[in-house]
């Protein structure tokens, strides 16, 4: 029977399948960070259990990590205690840890791919919803809660139910200035924050095939924002080229065997998806969110919506609530929304390609006098690469701040936060109320829109910069 890519990966990991029970699925890689793991390790200790496969487990420090003075002890005692707990747990249970200051440290979803630990056909979990990022390699990767983290630590498996299958096909050419971030924001606006519930989404079509691995990661990363369990993309030559030579990629005869297997990881002709969505790449434009969930987005040429246009009372109330929180007036052109802070970074858009795109626009220009811009590389390695390319100088010369690696202002568990009422254009993944700091107002954007916004001081597309220079 023809199978989808996700079904092939799922089936290859079934340890046990019995009618009336969830399947037991083997986990190839378990990524761990400091926030969602301490209670899981405590659970192991309380039950006298060990970590079954420390060799398939990797930990890093990312959420609490300051991006300034990164070699000093963390000033916030609660954050420091959490990071210290991870260090103790990693040492006690024999897990490799990339701590602050380590060359391999970074956002957990940036370091897995960069080390070559993320490979096609794997099952990958982490106590973090953006684990879907790793699906860009054709892996079945999804976020789990702390009880499941404990379960994977103890057994290297998870009880799972077979997910439904959705295809999001993006065909055609993306217009200039339109990126992977715009694609996924448009997908979420179309299917809604609950549209993917119960599904694994396979992104396919000619526009997806042309994307780099970094861009594919951006798309898969935000699958969770559409409510999906995971998102993935079939591995191809782009995938293999990215992986070859990375520290944990197979070598020699192993590489050949791996590529032979990986090449089978495509949805079969005739495989059936439970739901299909088609998007014409040529119709897309830079996208920004106006509200307080990632589905509340529009093309940048749009205007702030009017609650009166919503017939459904619940929807109207939600839009009213979102606009009140965001401090926006219905009918305002999105381009006229002034922004205080621009955040470039996160597991969505903190990779080298994202920094290059922004730097290209910032080069030789100065950011708006009333706007601050934080540039936070996704990992120590991304930071080093950017500095080798001189991107740090471009950001600094433009008036932006060049910071250390971590999750940073995506969720403000470190000191990088918005003040109440402060408005950001952010390349991160969530515009939830208070996400970037209490009372902070977030507009989700691509790296190119982030750079254009920093230069103009209001939401802007790269194409708008011609008028700035004139």
């Amino acid at each position, binding site marked *: 029977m023809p199978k989808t890519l996700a079904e092939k990966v799922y089936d290859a990991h079934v340890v046990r399948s019995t009618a009336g029970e969830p399947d037991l699925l083997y986990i190839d890689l378990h990524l761990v960070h400091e926030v969602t793991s301490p209670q899981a390790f405590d659970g192991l200790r309380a039950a006298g259990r060990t970590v079954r496969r420390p060799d398939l487990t990797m930990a890093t420090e990312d959420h609490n990590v300051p991006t300034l003075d990164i070699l000093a002890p963390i000033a916030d005692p609660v954050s420091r205690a959490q990071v210290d707990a991870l260090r103790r747990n990693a040492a006690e249970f024999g897990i490799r840890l990339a701590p602050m200051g380590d060359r391999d440290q970074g956002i957990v979803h940036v370091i897995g791919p960069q080390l070559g630990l993320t490979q096609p056909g794997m099952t990958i979990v982490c106590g973090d919803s953006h684990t879907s990022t790793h699906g860009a390699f054709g892996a079945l990767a999804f976020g789990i809660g702390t009880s499941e983290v404990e379960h994977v630590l103890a057994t290297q498996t998870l009880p799972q139910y077979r997910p439904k299958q959705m295809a999001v096909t993006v065909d055609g050419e993306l217009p200039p200035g339109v990126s992977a971030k715009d694609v996924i924001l448009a997908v979420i606006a179309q299917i809604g924050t609950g549209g993917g519930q119960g599904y694994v989404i396979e992104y396919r079509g000619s526009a997806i095939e042309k994307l780099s691995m970094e861009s594919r990661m951006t798309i898969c990363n935000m699958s969770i924002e559409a409510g999906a369990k995971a998102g993935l993309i079939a591995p191809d030559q782009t995938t293999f080229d990215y992986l070859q030579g990375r520290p944990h990629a197979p070598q020699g005869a192993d590489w050949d*065997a791996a590529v032979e297997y990986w090449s089978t990881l495509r949805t079969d002709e005739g495989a059936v998806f439970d739901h299909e969505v088609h998007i014409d790449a040529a119709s897309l434009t830079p996208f920004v969110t106006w509200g307080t969930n990632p589905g509340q987005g529009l093309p940048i040429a749009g205007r702030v919506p009017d609650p009166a246009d919503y017939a459904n009372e619940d929807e109207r109330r939600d839009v009213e609530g979102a606009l009140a929180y965001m401090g926006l007036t219905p009918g305002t052109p999105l381009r006229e929304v002034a922004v205080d802070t621009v955040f470039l970074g996160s597991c969505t858009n903190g990779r080298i390609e994202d920094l290059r795109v922004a730097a290209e626009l910032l080069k030789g220009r100065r950011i708006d006098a009333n706007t601050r811009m934080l540039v936070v590389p996704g990992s120590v390695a991304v930071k080093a690469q950017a500095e080798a390319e001189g991107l740090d100088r471009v950001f600094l010369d433009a008036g932006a701040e060049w910071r250390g690696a971590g999750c940073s202002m995506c969720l403000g568990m470190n000191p990088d936060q918005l003040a109440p009422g402060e408005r950001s254009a952010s390349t991160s993944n969530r515009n*939830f109320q208070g996400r970037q700091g209490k009372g902070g107002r977030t507009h989700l954007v691509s790296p190119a829109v982030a750079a254009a916004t920093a230069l103009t001081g209001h939401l802007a597309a790269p194409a708008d910069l011609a008028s700035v220079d004139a």
Partner: protein
Amino acid sequence: MDAFTTHTGTAAPLRRSNVDTDQIIPAEYLKRITRTGFEDGLFIAWRTNEPDFVLNQPQYADASILVAGPDFGTGSSREHANWALLDGGFRVVISSRFADIFRNNSTKAGLLTVILPQDQVEALWNAIEADPALPVTVDLRAKAVSYGDTTVPFEIDDYVRWRLLEGLDDVGLTERHLDDIQSYEATRPAWKPKALPALPA
């Protein structure tokens, strides 16, 4: 995890959709390394900033059943959201749609999530707003929500229901199948990556 068989209590109407886990408990509360004591962070922004927020209203202060709009629990995978609801005195959340990870975490933490059609959620909202002291019973054995003269059946996976009724811990259940796990491990290709040992630069 505590077993869940049936629960009777009063209910609070949370007439909002897309209640994300950042609203249920913000990230700053996630720095703790304990598994209990998260009630102080539960809906803290709304409790602080909105005097009329449903959980600020005295008639709902003792509610143990939360009745929410669609797409409850979206966003982050933080199980702290489930813990915060339990710590805040809730045993059941009713909604027409839940985010997958939140719902899954609930089954591990012992918080019952009940899916009812939106028109039934609406009817329940109206009933509890008319009488906030109205007892609502959620019976997992009978798979039914009842209040006043109304009884509404709900669906739940049989296996999940059994685990909740028995209060069973998943790890212990999986450990019964260690033989299967070992057999599977023997078939894994040797080239699959290992995180250990750390490789030289």
